[in-house]
């Protein structure tokens, strides 16, 4: 059997990949994708913990995370479309006018 | 041969048989479509190749194989190739979770019975649904990677249409699952064995007539068939998402479509028509023949509808899906839930 730690390490790596993606990419859509990676990393650790504890709670939290992810993707992409209409760009650095 | 090896061999044989049947199904369906079309239009249809044109599909395949493979200059090389593969893979894979026959020992050949079907999954309904929903990527990617506006529009239409009708589709599935109390297709089928009053088969068709109709309509839309064939509406989009395809790559799309039709029909049979349960033949371990017959009837209906009903307008399609089909499915689900709760089925 696979130790719990293995799943958690996979989860950690995926999470770090997601965060790195947020910093490295200059495309709003890819950044959103990176956020999805992070969410999935968390999901994995939830399910793994749930399995280790022998309860279904981990799975249920995962459902909620998925729902939130769906909502986030819908709204986030709607915003991306709106932004793109204004600047013809998806680079987050193009939208820096909201400051001081 | 010892039992384990024999068993392995038989499993492999079942998988092979399923695969073979699916390939043949697509070929046969092409022919059937053209023949039935001809029949309905009071003409012969293909009749030159082989007796009554029976070998026409073979000729078609040969023709397609020898055609030149074309790729538009600005097309995305990888995704252009990947798209038909995804389509056809998803189509084949979806059928893997569909059982098509009862447990059998092959006339005493095996000690313990083997299940007829590629894989027995306890969440088969979800698996079929999940893999079917992957099929949309093939079409969307094809549309996008071709770098052609007809293809792109076809791909967009396809994805929008499939997402819309998936809702109604999944909701009707939920009704049946509630009745059967299981996500396993095999258990759903077994729940339909026997008769009411001695002669009416206990098919969910009779408990879920509305659900069945919704399922078939949604299935037609899911497989992009007429009257919902907007992704490839030739009058508007030349040929939709596969405009730029040729040769084998092109052949894979219709093949995927026909396999999807078959899968849809098979699942409909399992869910509503009692699967392999039927009189007489079941007793000889030949229930799967009933299965084939039922699937054939549904497939015939598909073709029949295609050549009878004209194509809708695109907005009518979306309106129909969201404003009529989906609410109907939800109401059906609620009524079913109330029914299950009240009669404690």
């Amino acid at each position: 059997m696979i130790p719990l730690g293995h799943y958690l390490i996979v989860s950690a790596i995926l999470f770090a990949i997601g965060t790195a993606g947020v910093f490295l990419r200059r495309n709003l859509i890819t950044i959103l994708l990176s956020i999805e990676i992070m969410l999935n990393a968390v999901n994995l650790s939830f399910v793994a913990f749930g399995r280790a504890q022998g309860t279904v709670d981990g799975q249920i939290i995962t459902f909620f995370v998925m729902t939130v992810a769906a909502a986030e993707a819908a709204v986030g992409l709607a915003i991306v479309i709106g932004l793109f209409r204004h600047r013809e760009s998806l680079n987050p650095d193009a939208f820096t006018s909201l400051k001081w | 041969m010892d039992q384990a090896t024999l068993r392995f061999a038989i499993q492999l044989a079942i998988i092979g048989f399923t695969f073979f049947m699916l390939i043949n199904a697509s070929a046969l369906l092409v022919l059937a479509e053209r023949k039935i079309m001809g029949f309905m239009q009071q003409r012969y249809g293909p009749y030159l190749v082989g007796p009554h044109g029976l070998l026409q599909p073979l000729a078609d395949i040969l023709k397609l194989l020898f055609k030149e493979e074309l790729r538009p200059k600005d097309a995305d090389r990888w995704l252009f190739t990947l798209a038909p593969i995804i389509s056809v893979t998803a189509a084949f894979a979806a059928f893997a979770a569909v059982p098509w026959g009862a447990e059998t020992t092959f006339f005493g050949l095996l000690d313990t019975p083997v299940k007829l079907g590629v894989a027995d999954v306890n969440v088969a309904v979800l698996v079929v649904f999940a893999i079917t929903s992957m099929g949309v990527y093939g079409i969307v990617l094809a549309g996008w990677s071709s770098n052609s506006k007809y293809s792109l529009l076809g791909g967009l239409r396809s994805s929008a249409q499939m997402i819309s009708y998936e809702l109604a589709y999944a909701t009707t599935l939920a009704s049946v699952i509630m009745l059967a109390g299981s996500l396993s297709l095999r258990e759903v089928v077994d729940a339909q064995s026997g008769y009411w009053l001695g002669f009416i088969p206990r098919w969910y068709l009779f408990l879920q007539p509305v659900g069945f109709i919704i399922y078939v309509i949604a299935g037609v839309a899911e497989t992009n068939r007429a009257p919902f064939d907007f992704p490839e509406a030739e009058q508007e989009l030349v040929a939709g998402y596969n405009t730029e395809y040729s040769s084998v790559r092109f052949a894979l799309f219709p093949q995927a479509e026909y396999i999807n039709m078959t899968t849809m029909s098979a699942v409909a049979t399992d869910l509503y028509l009692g699967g392999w349960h039927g009189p007489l033949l079941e007793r000889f371990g030949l229930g799967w023949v009933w299965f084939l017959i039922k699937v054939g009837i549904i497939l015939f209906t598909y073709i029949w509808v295609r050549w009878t009903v004209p194509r809708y307008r695109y907005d009518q399609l979306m309106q129909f899906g969201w404003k009529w089909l989906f609410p109907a499915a939800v109401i059906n689900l609620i009524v079913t839930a109330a029914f299950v709760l009240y009669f404690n089925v």
Partner: protein
Amino acid sequence: MSETILFYLLAGVAVVASALVIGQRNPMYSIMLLIASFGALSGLYIQLDAPFVAMAQVIVYAGAIMVLFLFVVMLLNAPQEDGAEWDRAHPLRRPGIGRFGALLAGLLIVQLVWALTRVNDVGGAIGARGDAAAISSVRAVGRVLFTDYVFAFEATSILILVAMVGAVLLAAREGSR
């Protein structure tokens, strides 16, 4: 044994695909790779006796959310990451800052693994506790979801509704409101 191999295979696919997701300039490829990653994760869920989550992962993430992304990419038709120099004068917006972020991400992995080494319980094989059948059945999941978590479930439904309205409103063209 085969289970271990499968685990490493799936985990490897998930990690490599994810890494490639953020390595692509073309969001279309990113999306396809992410779907692959999700597929691998779905396999891991099956290994964790959570088939329902696995299927939901495919249906919801791969089948719906990713289609949405795909749709947007197709709609905007601006696939390539644009290399335009936006306001690079600001010291905090230099490209190097991204590399710094990646460095931090690496640091995070080290930290998390380090944290894991300091916890005793994670070494044990998974599945030692609890009955696999009890937690893998959809029935069990549904029962808990609609009893203990029913409030969260209902709240989620409202969240979805709000998100739907918000998305429609945001994406609607100015004139068509």
